[in-house]
């Protein structure tokens, strides 16, 4: 597990910053809920009259006056975007950084198979995403308890599970891309996360491109549907997991046979 531990150590600063930042903003959102609660009826009316924009973010199906309605929108913005950026950046950098930083010669001339290097780096990605989400989940529950609201555990757990799966999918796809890249991996990761986010918004607005919901992982993170139906759309989750698995398979296929040039 040398590579795994080494990667955890190398990535610990970025991991702490991302976890701290996401946790901080999520907790702040929860802590300001009691103050905003009284104004939410007026806000809900405003949001409900914003046409396509309302549909784009699912605000036509959520009640901002309730904790879960408020949390779903805020969680989507904070955890949905920042968590996806973290997963995409981490996944996209893990393999590419060895060639970019010219450390691939050092690592790959030691008696460790490329398959093992890939596996341990993948384990790092899964561990970081899992720990980040566990910390954020516990922080969210603690924050809700701290403001004296009852915890809608099932809905919160479903929301966090959906965003966890989204991060796994994006992280895995970016990990696969990372095997093909030497430079520019950060841009590719951020670009992919932003693109899939925009695809979901466009699919929400325009029925003619609704098929995009079967491509973007944000579709199975639609808070209004998760809260409304009390479950995740398993077809979309399944497609997402298949895409993630393809990303991982691509990483093994490419990196095991890749020429490491100077």
């Amino acid at each position: 597990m040398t590579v795994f531990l080494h990667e955890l150590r190398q990535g610990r600063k970025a991991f702490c910053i991302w976890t701290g930042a996401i946790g901080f903003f999520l907790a702040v959102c929860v802590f300001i809920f009691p103050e905003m609660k009284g104004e939410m009826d007026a806000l809900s009316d405003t949001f409900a009259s914003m046409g396509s924009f309302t549909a784009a973010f699912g605000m036509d199906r959520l009640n901002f006056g309730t904790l879960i309605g408020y949390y779903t929108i805020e969680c989507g913005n904070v955890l949905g975007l920042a968590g996806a950026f973290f997963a995409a950046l981490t996944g996209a950098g893990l393999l590419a950084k060895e060639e970019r930083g010219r450390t691939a010669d050092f690592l790959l001339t030691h008696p460790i198979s490329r398959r093992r290097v890939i596996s341990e780096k993948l384990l790092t990605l899964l561990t970081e995403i899992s720990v980040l989400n566990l910390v954020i989940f516990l922080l969210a529950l603690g924050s809700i308890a701290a403001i004296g609201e009852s915890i809608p555990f099932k809905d919160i757990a479903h929301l966090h599970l959906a965003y966890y799966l989204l991060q796994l999918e994006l992280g895995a796809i970016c990990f696969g891309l990372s095997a093909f890249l030497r430079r520019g991996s950060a841009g590719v990761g951020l670009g992919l996360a932003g693109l899939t986010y925009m695809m979901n918004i466009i699919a929400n607005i325009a029925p003619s491109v609704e098929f995009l919901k079967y491509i973007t992982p944000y579709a199975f993170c639609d808070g209004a549907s998760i809260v409304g139906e009390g479950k995740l759309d398993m077809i979309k989750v399944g497609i997402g997991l298949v895409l993630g698995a393809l990303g991982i398979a691509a990483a093994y296929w490419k990196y095991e046979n890749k020429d490491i040039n100077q």
Partner: protein
Amino acid sequence: MDAIKTAQLTKYYGQVRGIESLDLTVEEGDFFGFIGPNGAGKSTTIRTLLGLIAPSSGSAKVLGMDIGRQREAILKEVAYLPSESAFYPGLRGRDMIALSARLRGRDCAAEADRLCQRLQLDPSKKADTLSFGNKKKLAIVCALQSQPRLLILDEPTGGLDPLMQREFFEILKERHESGATIFLSSHILSEVQRYCSRAAVIRAGELIACDRVESLAKSSARRIVIHGQADLSPLSGLRQLEESEGVISFLYSGEMQPLLAVLSTGQIQDLSVTEPDLEEIFMHFYEKEADPS
């Protein structure tokens, strides 16, 4: 056993030639020099042997093991020193040394300390802030600490001052005497001539000579230096002819009798006939490329 044996080893980068039909044999226990200018294919050969790049065709064995199928087993016995080393950001020298040892699954702390002392390396400094020379020392410690059977060194002395170069070669000689095979690529022909027992010359991706260093020197021309005047026009086999202030110098690869006959008709005050050094041999091989006739 052969430490390295390649058969028709070829590597193309798309349409660009890396190495072409390379047949190279390095016996176990050799102190072997691998000579060639930039772009000749030295690094391509080394990277192929280490499994960093896959050959386009041909085969190669290192310590009797196939480079394609037994890469991990090979790397347990081999250490590599790159021409330019890169280290992970934020890690101290001692962290890099320990990481290298852990990747080998061995405790090399005692040997690493000994090497740091001999090379005067402070391993407590951040690796990515070290000077080029100290980075080279750190890479040497990482490579040598595990006491490998085969050392593959790519331009190993770049960045080291002369004292450190001498210490480094002392360490290599000790390793060689204790049974390790040293495979050393270099531009610095004097160090190959001084330390290596055998050498190969690579040109445009092809091996053009491979022999004992003394044999390489003997098989080539003689350096003739004449103080005086002589008409050399009847002679063939002259190269690098230079004349200045009554001194004529040239490389001669023809028969001695015609040379002596020509010189006997001239006005010669002094004459020296010496074996050319490896640098001249190297130039001889490369002049052939420029003028194949």
